[in-house]
């Protein structure tokens, strides 16, 4: 590892250590897994009763698709829960440093602002990955007792990861703005609901307005991926969102020196 990587990794390790020595990561992961578990159960139950009814009619039976009927909804709801809970993981990243004064240690150490931001970002990504992998356990049951297609599930997870990654960057940006974790979380929630409303609005509009809303909305870009469609436009959207947020975070921290 070169110097830059070592510095980033030092910050990442520190953040992971704090995530796992305080209850926050456990609470967020537990609530998320619980919600997803209940949701999965309900969707599978619904699918089962449909299957029973459809069994009498071979035509309908052919139409039943676990990917469409269970996983599409599951991914949509998972994305709603996930982003909401991610705000709780990112709210402390910079706010807490500022509040406790540990930012003075970081910014007077021979380590760059970009390295600090990336270190924190990667720690949250690792946590996101762990949480998503844990939900993968549910799919073991689908594969054991059914025959879903793997590709749409994987692309759905990729979508969740990219969306989560972009949203973490948004959360980090808001965390850099204030020393109050609650305000940081509320600002992140604000963006979350804004995107949600844009998505809902896009369902009720048509023409060019719909196209614009669809392009802006966080959730819309995720939709195709849950159906196994990988579009570079969607991936580019999430990546550019991530870069923009992290860049803004850098600007905020850099400008702090001049205030």
């Amino acid at each position: 590892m070169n110097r830059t990587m070592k510095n980033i990794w030092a910050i990442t390790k520190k953040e992971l250590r704090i995530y796992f020595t305080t209850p926050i990561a456990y609470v967020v992961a537990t609530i998320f897994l619980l919600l997803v578990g209940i949701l999965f159960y309900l969707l599978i139950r619904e699918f089962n009763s449909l299957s029973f009814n459809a069994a009498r009619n071979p035509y309908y039976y052919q139409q039943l698709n676990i990917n469409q009927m269970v996983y599409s909804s599951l991914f949509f709801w998972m994305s709603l829960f996930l982003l909401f809970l991610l705000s709780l993981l990112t709210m402390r990243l910079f706010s807490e440093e500022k509040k406790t004064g540990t930012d003075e240690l970081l910014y007077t150490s021979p380590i760059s602002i970009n390295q600090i931001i990336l270190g924190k970002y990667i720690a949250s990504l690792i946590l996101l990955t762990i949480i998503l992998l844990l939900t993968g356990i549910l799919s073991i049951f689908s594969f054991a007792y059914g025959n879903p297609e793997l590709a749409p599930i994987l692309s759905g997870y990729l979508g969740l990861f990219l969306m989560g990654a972009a949203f973490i960057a948004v959360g980090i940006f808001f965390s850099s703005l204030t020393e109050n974790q609650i305000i940081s979380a509320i600002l992140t929630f604000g963006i979350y609901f804004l995107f949600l409303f844009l998505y809902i609005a896009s369902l009720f509009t048509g023409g060019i307005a719909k196209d614009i809303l669809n392009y802006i909305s966080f959730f819309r870009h995720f939709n195709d991926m849950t159906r196994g469609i990988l579009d570079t436009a969607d991936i580019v959207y999430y990546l550019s969102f991530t870069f923009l947020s992290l860049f803004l975070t850098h600007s905020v921290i850099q400008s702090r020196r001049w205030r």
Partner: protein
Amino acid sequence: MIEVEHLTKKYGNLVAVKNLSFKVEKGKIWGLLGPNAAGKTTTMRILTGYLAATEGKAFVAGFDVFEHPNKVKKIIGYLPENLPLYGDMTVYSYLNFVAEIKQIPGSKRKDAVEKAIEISGLETVRARIIKNISRGFKQRVGIAQTLIHEPQVLVLDEPTIGLDPAQIIEIRQLIKSLKGDHTILLSTHILAEVTQTCDGVVIINEGLLMASSSLEELTASFKEKDGIIVQVKKETKKAVSLLKEIPGVENVTEKDNEIKIEWSQKKDLRDDITKLIVAKNLGLIEMRPLLMHIEDLYLKVISG
């Protein structure tokens, strides 16, 4: 080792530091003294690269802190006023983290952490969670954190604030023991701290430099008169009137049986005074030089 030249820092309209210049020589401990909100913390934050100055320059070990911030950050250890501690980490893992971000290579990191623990006296709490240890130990962890990369320069912002008297003495001893290997700039608003630990002092008030020199020079320059304080066994009143007769004596006052005798600095009257007291058989008990107290000095400097 530390040089500050015409430094100015404005926060919006508020001027925190105005055209400040001073120097600290290698291996010395200097105090940055001033009332609250005098600009001490701002000055230190600029020196350590946490804040940028509005105008002026600052050098640490010859490096411009604005042009080579990373070089300066490598040779400076900084204890902010609010201890930069992660409460949820253990003392050891915290110091290990600091060693990592101070770029100590992996092979030397363990030794560096052990050494910092030893110097700062943290052996007994090394495995404890930081939020559970006492304020005095937290302060020590803060100091250990500044020492870990063996910096040439230490910048300590109010290192004894919030400690009990015994802890204050311990921390002062610790700071004194670091002198020589390190050049130290410490800020304080406690005057005794300066007389007990520092070689020199920079006094600032409302962002302006009021005085900057070694302690002796400073005391000498503000002392207009020489004098002594004597105590006699009997007949203090008589002694006062007799002492007034000595040629050259300008002022004799008595308070709590102590007689303060002052004269202008040109000649030394101590010999004449002793001879008189002995000749009149007044019973000399005590005789000590009239020192200007740092408190008087400070108030004099601050009031201009």
